[in-house]
């Protein structure tokens, strides 16, 4: 009983953080009140789904399209002003924002992982 309680207490914050998305498919959505705080929450969600990678998002992502595409970010310098990987065979990561009920759901298309975004407002768009 005690173990179960401890386990529950340990897992509860994790569940609150990840807040896995409802299973029902949502409708494509965009952010309805974009702000610096919203971009920060999106960055954290994306980073969480990608294992903690360093994510840089433009302030207008997911405001005109429900799709977010992320590429490797070239490291530039005087020695390599255009970046090093000039013949890249990398592939981007694609995310989609959808709305299910009151939930704004961010889904990583390549892995199928989803996160319900807390404190983020979105609205359904017709594609």
């Amino acid at each position, binding site marked *: 009983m005690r173990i179960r309680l401890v386990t529950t207490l340990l897992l509860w914050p994790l569940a609150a953080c990840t807040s896995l998305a409802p299973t029902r498919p949502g409708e494509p959505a965009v952010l309805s009140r974009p702000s610096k705080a919203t971009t920060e929450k999106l960055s954290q969600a994306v980073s969480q789904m990608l294992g903690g990678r360093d994510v*840089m998002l433009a302030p207008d992502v997911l405001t005109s399209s429900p799709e977010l*595409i992320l*590429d490797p970010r070239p490291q530039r310098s*005087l020695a390599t002003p255009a970046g*090093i990987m*000039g*013949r*890249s065979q990398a592939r*981007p990561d694609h995310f989609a924002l959808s709305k299910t009920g009151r939930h704004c759901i961010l889904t990583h298309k390549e892995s199928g992982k989803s996160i319900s975004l807390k404190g983020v407002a979105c609205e359904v768009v017709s594609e």
Partner: protein
Amino acid sequence: MAVGHRLSIHAFTGILTACMALILTACAGGSSNSAPPPPPPAATGPVWQQGVFEPSDKYANKCETPRTGINPATNQPYPDVKGSELEEKFWQRSYSNETYLWYNEIQDRDPATGGDRLAYFDTLKTTATTASGNPKDKFHFTEDTAKVQQRISSGASAGYGIHYAIIARRPPRKILVAFVEPNSPAADQGVARGAEILEVDGVDAVNDSSQAGVDKLNAGLFPDAAGESHSFKILDPGSTTPRTITMTSAIVTEVPVNILKTLDVGGNKVGYLHLSTFFTSSTEQGLFDAFTTLANTGISDLIVDLRYNGGGFLDISSEMAFMIAGQAQTGGKTFETLQYNDKHTTTDINGNPITPTPFYNTARGFSVPRGTALPSVNLNRVFILTTSGTCSASEALINGLRGIDVEVVLIGTLTCGKPYGFIPPDNCGITYFTIQFKGVNDKGFGDYTDGFAAQNAADGVGELIPGCEVSDDFTHALGDPAETQLATAISYIQTGSCPTSARPFAQKLHAERSLHADDPASLFSNPRVRNAWLLRHSLLAGGPQRGEE
């Protein structure tokens, strides 16, 4: 068995006692009553035997300073275990022997000598030179893995919206503004194409050669995050008086196809497209939209401006080649095949089958839904505007089209000469960029280490192809028909040859090349000549860069 068990217990007890004694000794190390500590044991580790290479796996992830936790790039725990710098160097040596394109041109040196791991890695490359005397391998780097493999973005980067044209990377440097993104910090400060960067945060951007200076220049020119303020002394085009400005970095989203227009040339429609990068997924959508427009317009010629395009996704370069040439010319043909060293003839260095990249006639799913049919303008000739900033996947476009006999007319200066690429591995927190493959076209050609140049290039350096050698013109905006490179392309379309005015430019470029050469006997080693060159170049921009920093 019972005896053995008892012995094991004895042995265990003995080891435990020894360990405890060791710990107590260590703890008592600071006591003034203790005996002097014994000398440290002699360092042990792998021993170098010239020409004998053990598998790199034997030394992989044996790190002087192992990382702990989860690797964000793989979402798996770091594989690092405690090792030594010597083992890291042995890994470099074996890995280079396995994967470096010219592994048999590396002089085998004892990893126990030759400096630290970065200095040792610097020696693990060919020292051969090309026919022009330039280094055969100009692309040998290391980076902090946390910076290169783990950072992703939505096509955005922290900066001022400036795209630099770095004419000379080493002192005396010449850093010019190639173009500026609209609505960016630089645009707000009135920074325009042709402005020269003279100082960054008080560091002389032209002459400072100290590592501290270079670090400061890099930090200011290429900020890591938004919100960083840096001061710049710049010389605006047409001005003789520098001004000092402070710019605060912001997150700027690059627009890859930032100029698309149709020009009327002798009653014919000629497309002009400036493509700044293949590095972002949005390039695919930008090109799709641009070529849809051009195809609907019905152009007879196309001028593609790649002069500051350092490459990026090879697949998008292939798509662009299809959009230029169309199905009839590209069907069944190879855009590029990657060739590794002779230890990897059927599979790449990670064991994946080597498959040629075709001319993709449908989108690859970067930013256009995968499988979407691509538009095409179906041309058998294309004009490409170039500088030394035209690199890698941009050169692959030139080479890929030439491989199927599409006429590529090069207007500009020598390209960077990078038919090579990497599949960079991480070991112990460092990512190693060592050339592993060469891209060849449908004809099997990929030897353009000196770059592509126009056939009238004054010094004849590079793979010479049809076109006109013309310097970059920072006195006009990109896309302006009066801008020298674009004007030359237009003239060539009308006359079928280079304008006579292009030749003097080429002669000036020849002089610049001689000065830039990494040759102790170069005129450039003479300070008077160098100073005279600098004075002249405060008015004349252009020419290839010849060094790394």
